[in-house]
């Protein structure tokens, strides 16, 4: 028998929310299959099976678990599993089940003593139609008393609940709005709670803009050099990403402008010795910014390797909180979406972020002639409280010059 515990994903991690189990008690799992998904305030992470076996969860979905806490067991054989379920109370499937499922066991996050006839025998009995209607109207089946055989919730009960809902004074106003003319109707197609990662992003973005004075400068650089650089260093069909090149260039520029690589800490400005550069990416509908360590000390291939590894682990929900911690500067590239310029938002406590646009061929005047040239857009946002416009502009100019002539990195 193997205990399934909450892994410690980083030095700072103390607890995690158990988002969901991918298996039910009694299911056979193979080594390496994802057993459960946990979420810290920074990342979600898939915990995999350490061996083949029969899973028996004991912690319920939605509960918060300490690091190293046992949340379930993996039995080696069926007999061991049978013994397990005798010793350990069966649990969970906390999400309101589509099918008539087992009632969640006693867990701290659940209110105690709900006495509802429809639930009294351990599960919510409801007709498929009643379930569908309840879901459509956002009604909680466990709060509805069933009038069908053995307290089964049927359509009539849902209609009654909706009627009561309408009569409730606090809801009447909202309903009146609903009954306005169809052409005026504005109905939520979906209502998504702001929680988990979305809550973190939500709070961080607001905190960033409300607690610093952000200024964005735009410029454009000739991209011919980095295009040929990329061709030179990409080999065996494996292409080095522009992000790796741009990260190397930005890190080199930061070395020349250390006062951009800073943070405000109360009444003090810390100028960081190390450069740790975050790369904004999208994963599971959420913004996530894993960090590449010391890009100034690594060559472009090494940076590219780090980036590829971070992307892979982001996709597989395998990032640890440490992968996201201690950034000093951020790179955000929206070129894939044909964006030229934008106003990126700083990630506190960092003080600057470089937005990168697409590489696109434009008409440029050179030697009194209009010639085609590959151009790349650059947008630098910085905290104007501690970085003045001129030094900010000088840093961006250095980045531009290094993009146009990467040799400058070693000057």
């Amino acid at each position, binding site marked *: 028998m193997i205990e399934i515990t909450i892994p410690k994903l980083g030095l700072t991690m103390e607890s995690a929310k158990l988002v969901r189990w991918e298996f039910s008690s009694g299911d056979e799992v193979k080594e390496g299959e994802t057993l459960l998904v946990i979420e810290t305030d920074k990342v979600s992470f898939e915990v995999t099976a350490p061996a083949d076996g029969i899973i028996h969860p004991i912690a319920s979905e939605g509960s918060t678990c300490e690091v190293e806490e046992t949340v379930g067991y993996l039995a080696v054989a069926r007999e061991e599993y049978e013994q397990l379920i005798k010793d350990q109370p069966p649990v969970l499937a906390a999400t309101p089940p589509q099918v008539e499922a087992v009632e969640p066991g006693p867990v701290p996050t659940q209110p105690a003593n709900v006495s509802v006839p429809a639930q009294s025998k351990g599960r919510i009995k409801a*007709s*498929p*139609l009643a379930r*569908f209607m309840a879901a*459509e109207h956002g009604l909680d089946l466990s709060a509805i008393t069933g009038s069908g055989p053995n307290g089964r919730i049927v*359509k009539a009960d849902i209609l009654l609940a909706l009627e009561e809902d309408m009569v409730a004074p606090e809801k009447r106003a909202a309903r009146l709005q609903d009954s306005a003319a169809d052409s005026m109707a504005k109905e939520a197609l979906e209502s998504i709670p702001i929680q988990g990662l979305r809550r973190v992003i939500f709070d961080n973005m607001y905190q960033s803009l409300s607690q610093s004075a952000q200024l964005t400068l735009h410029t454009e650089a000739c991209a011919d050099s980095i295009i040929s650089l990329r061709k030179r260093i990409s080999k065996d069909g494996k292409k080095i990403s522009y992000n790796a090149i741009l990260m190397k260039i930005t890190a080199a520029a930061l070395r020349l402008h250390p006062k951009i690589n800073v943070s405000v800490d109360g009444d003090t400005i810390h100028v960081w010795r190390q450069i740790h550069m975050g790369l904004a990416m999208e994963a599971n509908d959420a913004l996530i910014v894993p960090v590449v360590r010391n890009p100034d000390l690594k060559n472009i291939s090494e940076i590219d390797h780090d980036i590829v590894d971070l992307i892979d682990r982001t996709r597989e929900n395998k990032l640890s909180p440490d992968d996201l911690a201690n950034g000093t500067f951020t790179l955000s590239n929206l070129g894939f979406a044909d964006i030229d310029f934008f106003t990126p938002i700083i990630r506190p406590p960092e003080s600057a972020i470089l937005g990168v646009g697409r590489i696109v061929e434009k008409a440029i005047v050179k030697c009194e002639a209009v010639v085609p040239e590959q151009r790349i857009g650059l947008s630098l946002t910085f905290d104007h409280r501690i970085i003045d416009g001129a030094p900010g502009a000088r840093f961006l100019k250095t980045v531009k010059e290094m993009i146009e002539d990467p040799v400058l990195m070693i000057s």
Partner: protein
Amino acid sequence: MEEGMTQVVYDVIVLGGGAGGVPAAIRAAQLGGRVAVIEHDNLGGLCMNQGCVPFGHMMVASKILGSLSLGKEMGLNFSPVSKDYGSLIKRQNELIAFMQQGVAGMLKKNNVELIEGRGKVAGRGQIEVNGEALQCKNIILASGAGWLKPNFPGADLEGVINSDDLLNMPKLPEKILLYGRSPWLIEIAQFLHSFDSEVILTTEEKSIFPDENKTIRTRLSKALKDQGIKILTSTEITGLTKKNDGLHAALARKDKEVRVVVDRVIALRRGSPLTGLGLDTVGLNEQGEFIQVDERMATSVEGIYATGDIAGPEQRHYSHLASTGGIIAAENAMGMDTLFDHRTIARVVFTQPQVACVGLTNKDAKRAGYDVITGSAPLSMNPFGMLTSQNNGMVEIVAEKKYGEILGIHIIGEGACEMAGQAVLAIQMEATLEELTRATFPHPTLSESLVEAARECLGRPIFLP
């Protein structure tokens, strides 16, 4: 009161030992009640003695004869076919006698007291039978309906008969005019036709089975006409006279007059003679053709319930309705609180093809304000339907658009009445279309078309062209 004279007080006395009364009595006894059933005639009521059972038996015979043509298609020949009505009736009566014994046994097993005699209400909590007054806490009226005189001139002539009279005839009449709107007439017409009688089925309505979906009506009419049964709709009997060569009927059909000469006229018109049951002693209305009951099968008088033909109009005279109503009445009489689910009473005819309709028709659903979607799957596209030449068969589903609530299922074809049970479950359990589409029905069966019709409702049929 003198010692030793303490009178028994029944929890429930049921008037009538038929399709409604027997289940009512057994259910009340199951719930711990002291129960008596009063019946003056054979146990089993109209259903077992003069209705579903004997005519069901005839429809089985009719089906066998009907399937001879399918056999012929397959190279199976049974000629010459001989039909001995006497043997058929003999088997029928033996079966009925066997079933009657079964009913008596069931009552006995459940300690239900059977009292032979004509009972009537003699005030609240009191029943009078064989000159004796019985005390009871609850009464369930389940004494059925009776024959009403058909409403056409000449209806009291000797050759005008009902289904009871037909059962008593040793030999089937050769030429028969069937008149009325009861679906039962369609079954009788088909049986007589299959036993080589010449039948004319007439109705004042625009169609046979007039309240059902058009698909069902037209397909049934076509099937019957193809078999050689003459159907006259929108037709009235305006005169009937008896002459030496038979009954001369004058039929008015859309301004035209048709004259036919037949041996018998079969007319079915049933209602409940409410007088004579002592209803006035408790203040129940004796006017009208049936007793009004609510969803608990309760009448307006406390402690008095009613079920079956006595408690509904003729188009709702179905044994299955009577039985379920009886159980509901008994439960409520015994202190439970249960309601009758009216959505799922199947309207059935055991003709060939069979017809079974459960729930709302298209029209009713629209009238009730539903946003209606429909879907259908012809049995001629169903593999088993093809094997059995179900050319007229069809499953049609009426549903509500938003949630996919199944409102009605209408089936014509072989096995329709069996399939109706699936329809009843789907509607009663409040299955949605989506769920029905996810049900894996065995192959090859006609019932697969039920799933396909649900898919068609949702615009994604798999096996339809």
